[in-house]
């Protein structure tokens, strides 16, 4: 094999390969590797930092979401209480209004009844007077004779009573 036979070239092969290796090592170590390795490390650091940041932001977002959910839940509770209170208030107000209205209606009814009663009494009184006068006049005309005061009064009263009874009877019907 030429690799074992050409012993004379071993010196130059070893010398130049070691020198070349040393030179390549020097060039790459001095000029090429540092910027590339630095760029690699910077990129790794950036990726690591970005990943950490995203983890942190994710945690924060989760926390904020939980807080918001809690706030929302509490707001829901408060709203329900407020609605309940408002409904209670409305019911109370409605009941009070109903009561007042009923009282007012009762009052108006009572007043109306009193008015009706007064009017009725007044009407009856007037009717009594008119009827008396009418009865006297008509009776005088029928009898064509003068009656004494006692007879007048008795006859009048009887007529009135009769009239009243008839009135009341007609009212009832």
């Amino acid at each position: 094999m030429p690799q074992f036979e050409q012993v004379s070239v071993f010196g130059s092969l070893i010398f130049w390969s070691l020198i070349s290796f040393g030179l390549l090592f020097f060039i790459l170590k001095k000029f090429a590797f540092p910027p590339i390795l630095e760029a690699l490390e910077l990129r790794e650091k950036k990726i690591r930092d970005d990943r950490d940041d995203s983890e942190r932001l994710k945690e924060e977002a989760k926390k904020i979401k939980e807080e918001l959910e809690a706030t929302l839940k509490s707001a829901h509770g408060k709203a329900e209480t407020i609605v309940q209170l408002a409904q209670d208030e409305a019911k109370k107000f409605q009941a009070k209004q109903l009561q007042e209205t009923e009282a007012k209606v009762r009052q108006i009814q009572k007043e109306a009844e009193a008015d009706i009663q007064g009017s009725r009494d007044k009407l009856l009184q007037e009717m009594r007077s008119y009827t008396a006068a009418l009865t006297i006049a008509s009776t005088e005309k029928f009898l064509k004779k003068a009656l004494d005061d006692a007879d007048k009064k008795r006859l009048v009263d009887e007529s009135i009573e009769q009239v009243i009874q008839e009135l009341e009877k007609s009212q009832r019907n």
Partner: protein
Amino acid sequence: MESPLHHFEVHTIIPIHIGGLDLSINNAIVAMWVGLAIVAGAFMLVVSRGVNPVPGKLQSVLEVALEFIRSMVYEFIGEEEGKKYVPFIATLFLFILACNLIGLVPGSYTITSQVAVTGAIAVGIFIMTLVIGFGKHGMHFFGILVPPGIPKIMIPLMIPIEIISMLARPISLAVRLFANMTAGHTVLAVLFGLAMTGPLWLGWLPFSFTIVINGLEIAIAFIQAYIFTTLTCVYIGDVIKLH
């Protein structure tokens, strides 16, 4: 038919003799320089353009290579200690890879198929591991010859075995690379010789095999560079950690 080992012959191009020492420039050295110039040129091109945070194609390739080597160094030596060895291991990987690949160009030469070269590099690495070991641990470095947990009675037996194992490291390192490169190129030469000498109706068969084997040789060029540097990392890691 030409000998399949013919292309392993070294031819002097520029004769240089200094003090009886033959330092002539030959075809193997020129091929190696071409390979190394391509590697250095690629790196210098990227650096001269300015290392971009968003890498281009060439920068990406070089970054992937460096990242791959760095993770390998960190795995076997440790991140703290390994940092200072990254440039050396990376240069070693690129040197062997460039020499292996440039040899696949027809008419070129694979300097890693010279056992003298692989031996010199392996011995250099072996000496370096000894220097690192003694520098870090002093006389305690001899503890590497005594594997942990063995009974005391076994120590006289284990020390010679460990010494042999240590000395076998550079030999295996050198022979593995040399043998793989030589074997691959020999197979290629034999197949190509067959293709050229045989009739056309038969010659296409070994020729198509050379294409397949060439692809395989590219993979072997990478694998051997990887194995050489991985073992170097393992040896350095061993002397730093002492088992």
